[in-house]
């Protein structure tokens, strides 16, 4: 009897498993499959012969459904979306180029931009793209500006005017410096006939949400597997992409994936550059080196003792051996950072800043003068920078400052930073190609207050003339280097390694893709050159 029962129980459990799995398969949305383009091979064969098509596999993960509102703003989700949607202007290695707009005029005061659209552009569903769509886009983004977080200047849109089918004027409340990055070159144009009736754009996940004008159409998106499959749009106004299929897969380790041929591309930065060296000398791979748009900083809480004292901050700057940190921790995968935050590979870089030579004896002297001995402070960071934290702890101990190192996960550390509940913190951020990043919330808002700085920042944000803007941006960097709200540590070097038999047109976009994403994944690469 127990035999039969055992079998029955076994069967029951098996049944449960099967039911559970079936339920999962049927009830979950699964990979979103969109109708494929008309150029599908008639016999239904999925993969055409290798000599006729290029399928490029790239590493990535789930960055959200690539509609203009639903992608996750925390990473390269924007890039996933940019393959499907276009902007009025775009950038290549050298700078701004026309895209959807063939040309544009700006008014004297810089508050009115008139764009002339390239003729004959259609949406993926065949409807023509007109000035109505452009006007609608700006109005719509302005209306829903609370729904997304990645465009900095949408609040400066005053209004739009459709002049004719291919001409549209955009009115701003004030001139925007770097308008191409912040607005015109980063806001994707969306089809009015689809988005007109949508109230909650973030939750709009229907198939129509990804109908754009871009060089690719989305064929499959699997959230749980982090897989995106794009197919070339043969009717693209800039020409059919040379890559027939673009596939993103999730991998644990990019070097391993590239080495085993699972992917055709890998991107390395900072400490990861050790892995890039494995591909040196292998004729199958080529690489390009890119500009550094990222910085790691030691952040002071300058609103409370002891680091509200600028001389103490300067003493710390002399005590931290940044060169050694770069050597031991990053193994040469980074460069010692510019004290003014903006990296040397960016045009806005100010090379005339004061240096704080590594000189622990001098630090100790300064501390003595300040009458501060036997200080005890807290340093918070995430596990990613634990190594740097150890070095800093050792360096500060040398001059008599006891550092209590606390690590936590990102949300915890963020929470503490916002509350101002720390003395020192280690954190980093990107986007330093764009001086707009220098506004105070780059580091915790509660950690540094300086009205002069704020004024300067607002000024450069409005200065459209590059030369004058450069002066102000240099001043900002000077202030940071003098006042040291943060002690910058390193900028990572960046390298892309790729299998050149598949595609050889990789480049790094000037100032980063769109609003400043530093990856070498500009959609122009896939159009061939």
């Amino acid at each position, binding site marked *: 009897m127990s035999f039969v029962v055992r079998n029955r129980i076994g069967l029951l459990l098996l049944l449960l498993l099967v039911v559970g799995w079936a339920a999962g398969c049927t009830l979950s949305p699964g990979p979103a499959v969109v109708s494929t383009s008309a150029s599908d091979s008639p016999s239904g064969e999925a993969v055409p012969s290798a000599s006729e098509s290029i399928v490029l596999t790239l590493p990535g993960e789930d960055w959200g459904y690539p509609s203009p509102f639903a992608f996750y703003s925390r990473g390269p989700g924007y890039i996933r979306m940019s393959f499907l949607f276009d902007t009025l202007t775009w950038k290549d290695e050298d700078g701004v180029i026309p895209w959807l707009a063939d040309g544009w005029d700006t008014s004297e005061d810089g508050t009115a931009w008139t764009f002339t659209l390239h003729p004959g552009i259609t949406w993926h569903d065949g409807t023509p793209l007109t000035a109505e769509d452009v006007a609608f886009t700006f109005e719509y983004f302005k209306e829903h500006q609370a729904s997304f977080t990645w465009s900095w200047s949408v609040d400066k849109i005053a209004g739009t005017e459709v002049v004719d089918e291919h001409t549209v004027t955009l009115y701003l409340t004030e001139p925007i410096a770097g308008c191409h990055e912040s607005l015109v070159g980063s806001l994707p144009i969306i089809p009015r006939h689809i988005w007109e009736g949508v109230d909650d754009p973030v939750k709009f996940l229907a198939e129509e949400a990804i109908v754009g004008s871009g060089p690719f159409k989305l064929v499959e998106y699997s959230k749980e597997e982090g897989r995106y499959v794009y197919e070339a749009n043969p009717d693209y106004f800039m020409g059919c992409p040379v890559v027939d299929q673009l596939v993103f897969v999730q991998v644990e*380790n990019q*070097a*391993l994936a590239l*080495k085993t041929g699972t992917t055709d591309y890998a991107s*390395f930065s900072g*400490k*990861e550059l*050790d*892995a890039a060296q*494995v591909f040196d000398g292998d004729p199958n791979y080529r690489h390009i080196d890119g500009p550094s748009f990222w910085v790691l900083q030691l952040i002071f809480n300058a609103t409370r003792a002891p680091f509200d004292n600028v001389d103490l901050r300067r003493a710390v700057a002399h005590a931290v051996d940044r060169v050694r940190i770069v050597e*031991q*921790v990053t*193994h040469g995968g980074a460069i010692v950072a510019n004290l003014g935050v903006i990296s040397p590979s960016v045009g806005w870089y100010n090379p005339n800043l004061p240096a704080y030579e590594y000189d622990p004896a001098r630090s100790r002297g300064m501390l003595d003068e300040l009458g501060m001995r036997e200080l005890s402070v807290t340093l*918070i960071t995430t*596990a*990613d920078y*634990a*190594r740097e*934290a*150890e070095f800093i702890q*050792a360096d500060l101990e040398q001059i008599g400052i006891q550092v209590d*190192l*606390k*690590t*936590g*996960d990102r*949300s*915890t550390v963020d929470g503490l930073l916002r509350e101002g509940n720390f003395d020192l913190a280690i954190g980093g951020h990107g986007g330093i190609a764009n001086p707009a990043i220098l506004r105070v919330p780059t580091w915790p808002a509660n950690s540094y207050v300086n009205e002069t700085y704020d004024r300067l920042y607002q000024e450069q944000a409005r200065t459209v003339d590059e030369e004058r803007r450069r002066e102000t941006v240099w001043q900002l960097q000077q202030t940071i280097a003098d006042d040291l709200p943060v002690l910058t540590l390193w900028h990572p070097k960046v390298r892309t390694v790729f299998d050149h038999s598949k595609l050889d047109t990789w480049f790094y976009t000037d100032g980063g893709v769109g609003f400043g994403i530093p990856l070498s994944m500009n959609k122009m690469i896939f159009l061939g050159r």
Partner: protein
Amino acid sequence: MNDLMQVVRGKQLASGGLAVLVTFGLLAVLAPMLSPYTPTEMDVPMQSPSGLHPLGTDDVGHDILTELLHGARFSLLVGFISASLSTAIGVVLGLLAGYYGKLGFTIMRVVDIFLAIPRFPLIVFLAAFLRPGLWTLALFFLLFGWARTSRLVRSQVLGERASGYVEAARVMGAGDPHIILRHLLPSTVPVALSRFIVEFQHVILAESGLSFLGLGDPTTKSWGMMLHYAFQYPTIFISDVWVWWAVPPGLCITLVVLALTFSGFAVEELANPRLRESRQHCRDEAPSGHKATSTRTGSVRPAAEAFVGGR
């Protein structure tokens, strides 16, 4: 105690296990003397094994052998502390729950809740708080270890009570504390020992897992942290670094867990003499001399479950 020595001497696996444990214990205690460097000393990073560094150096130049020896200290210590505390609390609560019915009911309901909560989501929860250091870890594992121990101890106590001598003792005028401490507590020793071993293994494996995920204290010198930094290193898969950086700590963890398992066999045999004696007879011969039969039935299940139930 005599029983234990007899069993251990006879069984090679168990004595082997104990020998390994003792070795690791010694290494842990003597680590500062045996290490060629200090754990915070930094040399040239990523060196392969050489005369200077028998196991090479890690990504910031720490000597790996030194880290390994000091790792033994942390890993064994945190395992020992958690396991001891959780076993102690589990035994106490289990005794009380088994002896006092009403209190027992409440305790068991709490136990049910704790047993229903899966450990790892809670690890994620707890790791959100700062300072995942030695005592936080120990406290955390203690929180989850005691429940199963107390349930098993309670079963044991119920079984003992059913066998009658408890009633007899009470009739003779023995007070509750006397019964609990003198009669019931000793009978829980095998279960407690089994659970101690299991919890020890659990903690060592879990600490390594937590550290691997990056949720541990990054400055601790533990085997788990060594593995964390090793597997974070970009070329860990495609170069040979894993051989001298990842394998030693991984192997150490495995050896300690194995050694604990084999030592545990000795404990099992203590708990269930039936396991012990049938070894002395041929398979075909009917096992005679049932020295301890029916009275021990109650203890088979808890002991067996104690050993593997909680994995």
